[in-house]
């Protein structure tokens, strides 16, 4: 699998996640393909040595999951390296927002997700849109809004779409904490370079077009265990343990994860949870199509007409918004809480 850290153009940037949930950055780190076309890819020797370094840190490589060799690359500093003092405090606040988003940034969250649902291991995991892979890629031009975005503005998009909420002000403590956490995590990573493991992998388009019915079968056998037969996740004491994949508490139609290709990348690399890399490409695309073929909250850019909104913001074969799936025109009955 090749990574495409910043993938997809019309998708919102975030790629949410299917299973976990997500929110932010990397996922949020989706950028239109080609935006960084001039960026040289990291050289194979560098990539190989990064993977070796990663393995060297592994206590027992012999037991490593088969897909683990796909991960890797840049190794963020260990969490116990967060310093004491006021700077470290803000790094820790950023991490707390990332993993418990509603509890720590509730004013800007409109659903049941956490950033860490789609950016696993608190935003550290390769191929799960890690923060260390996103930090050095901004400022960047994004087709999604037609101008150069700062990293902070990119994070605002995560809140508006993946979290179905409101954009925290650029100088808010929440955004500054998330930026600080990202900066801390990216220590030593080269800026302006697409690193191996950044973003979600680009899963080759399968032989057969993604199919709702086949996706349903995959969902029922591999995903419903945690996300429920209805895809609505599972709560304990009012908070989701397993995130809802569609419906009123999930990401909205503007989120990157609503793009079938983006979702296939996340799912292929990371799902079932802790068992990533085991679904076939076909299954990953099919189940991504099944997840993204369900109704969810409206795109906040909705202009009053589904077809016109599709034309303006979803003119992409991998967006199902405004198309008819399983007898329903997606986006026509958006869900609210």
């Amino acid at each position, binding site marked *: 699998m090749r990574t495409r850290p910043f993938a997809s153009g019309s998708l919102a940037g975030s790629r949410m996640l299917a299973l976990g949930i997500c929110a932010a950055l990397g996922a949020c780190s989706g950028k239109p393909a080609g935006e960084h076309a001039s960026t040289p890819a990291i050289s194979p020797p560098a990539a190989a040595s990064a993977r070796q370094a*990663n393995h060297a*840190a*592994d*206590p*027992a490589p012999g*037991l*490593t*999951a088969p897909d*683990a060799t796909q991960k890797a690359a840049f190794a963020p500093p260990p*969490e*116990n390296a967060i310093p004491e003092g006021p700077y470290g405090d803000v790094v820790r606040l950023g991490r707390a927002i990332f993993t418990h988003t509603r509890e720590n940034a509730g004013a800007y969250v409109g659903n049941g997700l956490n950033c860490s649902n789609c950016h*696993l*291991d*608190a935003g*550290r*995991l390769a191929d799960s849109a890690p923060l260390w892979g996103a930090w050095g890629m901004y400022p960047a031009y994004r087709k999604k809004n037609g101008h150069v975005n700062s990293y902070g503005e990119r994070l605002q998009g995560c809140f508006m779409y993946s979290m179905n909420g409101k954009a925290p002000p650029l100088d808010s403590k929440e955004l500054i904490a998330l930026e600080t956490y990202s900066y801390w995590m990216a220590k030593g990573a080269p800026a302006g370079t697409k690193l191996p493991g950044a973003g979600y992998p680009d899963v080759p388009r399968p032989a057969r077009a993604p199919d709702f019915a086949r996706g349903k079968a995959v969902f029922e056998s*591999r995903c419903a*265990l*945690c996300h429920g037969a209805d895809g609505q996740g*599972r*709560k*304990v*004491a009012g*908070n989701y*343990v*397993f995130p809802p994949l569609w419906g009123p508490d999930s990401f909205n139609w503007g989120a990157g994860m609503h793009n079938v290709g983006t979702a296939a990348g996340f799912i292929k690399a990371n799902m*079932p*949870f*802790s*068992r*990533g890399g085991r679904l076939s490409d076909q299954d990953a695309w099919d189940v991504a199509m099944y997840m993204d073929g369900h109704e969810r909250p409206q795109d906040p850019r909705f202009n009053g007409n589904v077809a016109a909104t599709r034309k303006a913001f979803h003119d992409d074969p991998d967006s199902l918004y405004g198309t008819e799936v399983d007898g329903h025109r997606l986006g026509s009955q958006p869900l609210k809480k």
Partner: protein
Amino acid sequence: MRLAGCFIRFAGLSAGVLLGWPSPAVAVDASTIATQGNGRGAAACASCHGADGAGQASSGFPRLAGLNGAYLRKQLDDFANGSRENAVMKPIATALDAGERQSIAEYYARLSPPRSRVASAAAGPKADSAGALLATRGRWSRQIPGCDQCHGPGGVGVGEHFPPLSGQSDVYIRNQLTAWKQGTRHNDPLDLMKHLSAALDDNDVKEVSAWYAAQPLHDAGATP
């Protein structure tokens, strides 16, 4: 409670008849099985799991009170069919008919989590201990999520597939992780515990078991 028990017993028998299960010669209700056994080879549950279903920490007999009923039913079935190997439970589960397994599972699911198993968090491992980190954050370099990410915050348990870890003893949790590692327990969905336990060494098992054994057990107990 008595009425409910009767109803469940009746429902179990009815289901047994409909599904063609052999009718028990003597129908034994759940509270009798729990305290006296069923008279056909299944010993009283309480003799090992305690009168209140709290289990026995030192011997590794797990708490049953407040666990999800569907989870408990599946475990009884799996003891009988061998996908969860256990020399003590196999003959007991085998001696219970399907209706009895269902009613005893529901009986323990309805019991309140035992006060006697409420642990003192103050006495447990520190929040930055190796066990705590495994429990809450996992070790993603080995594809291990935090245990809490499926078993719920504090290991409170989530639904029928992810039983509570809080309120179970150090010995029991260690025994289960070891059983998955060795393959004597292989009734986990999607091989989740097989793959996770394989990536844990003996010290990891010890640390994470100690962590959960010290977690407070709330009244809400097991399942949401």
